[in-house]
C-alpha cells in the first residue's frame, strides 16, 4: 500500500499542549526542524526543562496556561487564533490515589473540560492529533491487542483518556476536522521523568538499592524516538485514524530489570513480590505499520542504555549543583 503523506508541516502554526514533557520536548524540536511555527502550551513557565533554550532564543512561543483554568484560556485566546494544527499531549498520570473521586474529578477537569475549552478557541484547525493511552483498554480482552479491542478502562486515568477521545471524535465529526488518535504503550527513553516502572528500576539500580519486582507481567515498551516517528508520520497523513503505538514485542518485567542491572553493572538485588490485578499487555501494531508506514527501530537494549545514560547525567548534574551550592 502506498501511503500519501500530504499534509505539509512547513510554515504551519502548530500548538502543542504538554510540550515540556518527554514526548513534547522531542516533538517540538522535530517540528522546528520541519520548519513549523511551534507554540507550546504548558502549565508552568518556570519549568521549561529541555525546551528552555528554544523559548529563550525565541525559536518557539511558550504560553503559560493551566487547561483547567477557563478564564486563563479565554485570556490567551488571541494567541490561539491562527493555529492550524493541534497536537494534544497534555495529561497527568501521577495521582496519589488514582482511583479516588477527587482524581476522577481532576481527569474530567483537565482531560475533558480542558480539551473543550481549548477547542472553543481553536477555530481554524486543519487537523488534530491526540496522544491517548493503552490504559483505555484496561485489562485487555486479548493480546496482542489491536484497535478493535473493547475499551474497558479500570483507572480514572484510562477513562479520562477515553473521554477525551470521545469528545474529540464528536468535534472532529461535527466540524469535519481530521483527527488522529494514537494510543501509546509504555513510552521510555531519555527525559523520562515519569513514576513508572523503568525510571524507578533505573534509579534504584544506579544506587544499588534492592528492586521490587511485582508478579511477572508482559509489557510493550516503545522508545520515545519511535513515538516521535509515529507522531510525525500521523501529522503528515492527517486523516481520521486510530492507532496503537507500541513495538509489538513483549518484554517480561524481570527481563527489563535484568537488562538494567546488566547495563548499569548494578549490585541491586531483585525482590520478587506478589501484587494483585496484574495483567499482560502487548500491542498489535499491524495497523500502524501499514497505514502510518512506521516500524519501531530502537531495541529494548539500546533504548534502556539511552535512558540509563540520561538518568546518570541527571544524577551527575544534581550532585554538581549540590556541590556548587555548598
Amino acid at each position, binding site marked *: 500500500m502506498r501511503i500519501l503523506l500530504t499534509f505539509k508541516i512547513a510554515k504551519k502554526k502548530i500548538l502543542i499542549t504538554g510540550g515540556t514533557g518527554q514526548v513534547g520536548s522531542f516533538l517540538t524540536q522535530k517540528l522546528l526542524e520541519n520548519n513549523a511555527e511551534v507554540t507550546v502550551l504548558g502549565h508552568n513557565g518556570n519549568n521549561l526543562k529541555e525546551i528552555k533554550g528554544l523559548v529563550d532564543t525565541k525559536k518557539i512561543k511558550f504560553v503559560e496556561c493551566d487547561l483547567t483554568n477557563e478564564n486563563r484560556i479565554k485570556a490567551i485566546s488571541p494567541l490561539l487564533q491562527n493555529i492550524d494544527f493541534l497536537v494534544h499531549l497534555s495529561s497527568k498520570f501521577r495521582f496519589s490515589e488514582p482511583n479516588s473521586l477527587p482524581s*476522577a474529578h481532576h481527569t474530567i477537569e483537565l482531560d475533558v473540560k480542558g480539551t473543550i475549552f481549548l477547542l472553543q478557541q481553536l477555530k481554524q484547525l486543519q487537523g488534530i492529533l491526540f496522544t491517548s493511552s493503552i490504559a483505555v483498554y484496561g485489562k485487555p480482552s486479548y493480546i496482542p491487542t489491536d484497535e478493535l479491542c473493547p475499551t474497558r478502562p479500570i483507572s480514572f486515568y484510562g477513562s479520562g483518556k477515553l473521554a477525551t477521545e470521545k469528545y474529540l471524535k464528536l468535534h472532529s465529526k461535527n466540524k469535519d476536522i481530521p483527527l488522529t488518535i494514537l494510543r501509546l504503550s509504555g513510552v521510555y527513553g531519555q527525559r523520562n521523568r515519569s513514576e513508572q516502572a523503568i525510571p524507578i528500576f533505573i534509579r534504584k539500580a544506579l544506587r544499588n538499592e534492592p528492586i521490587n519486582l511485582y508478579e511477572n507481567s508482559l509489557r510493550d515498551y516503545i522508545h520515545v524516538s519511535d513515538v516521535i516517528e509515529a507522531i510525525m508520520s500521523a501529522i503528515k497523513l492527517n486523516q481520521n485514524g486510530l492507532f496503537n503505538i507500541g513495538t509489538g514485542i513483549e518484554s517480561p518485567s524481570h527481563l527489563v530489570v535484568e537488562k538494567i542491572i546488566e547495563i548499569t553493572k548494578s549490585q541491586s538485588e531483585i525482590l520478587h513480590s506478589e501484587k494483585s490485578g496484574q495483567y499482560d499487555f502487548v500491542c498489535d501494531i499491524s495497523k500502524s505499520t501499514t497505514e502510518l508506514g512506521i516500524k519501531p527501530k530502537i531495541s529494548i537494549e539500546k533504548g534502556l542504555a539511552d535512558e540509563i545514560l540520561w538518568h546518570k547525567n541527571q544524577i551527575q548534574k544534581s550532585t554538581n549543583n549540590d556541590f556548587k551550592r555548598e
Partner: protein
Amino acid sequence: MKAIPLKLLITGASGNIGTILGTRLQKNNIPFIGLDITNQDPTNNNFFQLDITDKNNFYRNKSDLNDVDTLIHLASKIDAGADVTNTGIESVNVNIKGTLNLLEHLPNLKNILFTSTYMVYGIPQQNPVAENHIQEPHTVYGTSKVVAEKYLQIYAQEKGIDLTIFRYMGIYGLMSHYASQAIPIFIKLIASGKSPIIYGNGLQRRNHLFIDDAIDAILVWINNKNPGVFNIGGADSPTNLDLISIINESMDKRLKPVFKKSEQYDFITDISKAVSVLHFQPKTRIKDGLSRTIEKFLE
C-alpha cells in the same frame, strides 16, 4: 419517635420520568428520598432541592444522605446538539461531574441504577443493536452518557457496588418530553390539521419505548437489582409512516406527510438481555401507546 431512615434516593425526581416513577412508588408503598433542582411538591419532607453541580449545596444535606444504600440516578441534562464547543461544558458539569458529586456524598451505596441512552451507540452498524455495539456517539448528550457510564463502572468496581445501566430507547407518552422527538411533533401537527414532516423516506424503524414500560423496567429493577448494562426498548418497531397512519386513524384525520430529504437509518435496540436477565418485558403495543399519548395530549 425517630423516622425510619430512608434508603432509596431518586435524582431527577421532578423530571418527566421521576415524577411518574414517584407516583408509582407511592402507590406501591415504597418510600424514597427525592432530589431535584426544582421541587414540585414543597410539602414533601423527603425531598432535597439541590443542584448536583453545586458541591457546597450537598454538604448541608450530607447527614440525611448517609443511610442511602440504593441510588436511582435519573437527573440529567438532555441536549440533542452535536457542537461540543457550544453545550459541551454544561453537559459535562451535569451528567458527568454531577454524577461524581452525588457519589461523593453517598458513602454507603450498595446498588446504583443509572439511566443512560441508546444515543451512546451513534449510528448502528447493524440492527438490532446489542449492548456490546461500538460506542461512537454523535451528540453531546450521548457522549456525556458514555463517559459517565465508564466513570461509574470504575467507581462501582473499586467500591464493590452493584451497578445497573439502562440504555433507554427514545421514550414517548410525555408530551413535554424531548421536544425534538418524532412522536410528539407528529401528534401536534396532525392535531392542528397540518401535514407532518418526515425526514427521509419514512421507512426508518425505531423501537420507541412507552413511558409506562420505562417505569416498569425501574420497578422490576427495584425488586431484583440485577447488575449489568441493559438496552430498554419498546415492544414494536414501527416506521415513521406507521406512526403517522396510526395517529391519523386515532385522531380521525387523513393528513399526508411531507417528505424532506435527509439521511435516516433504522435504530432498533436488542432488548433480549433485559428480557432474560432483568425479566423486563415491554407490554405496551405501539397502537395502544400512541392512543394513550394522544389522550394525554388532548386533555
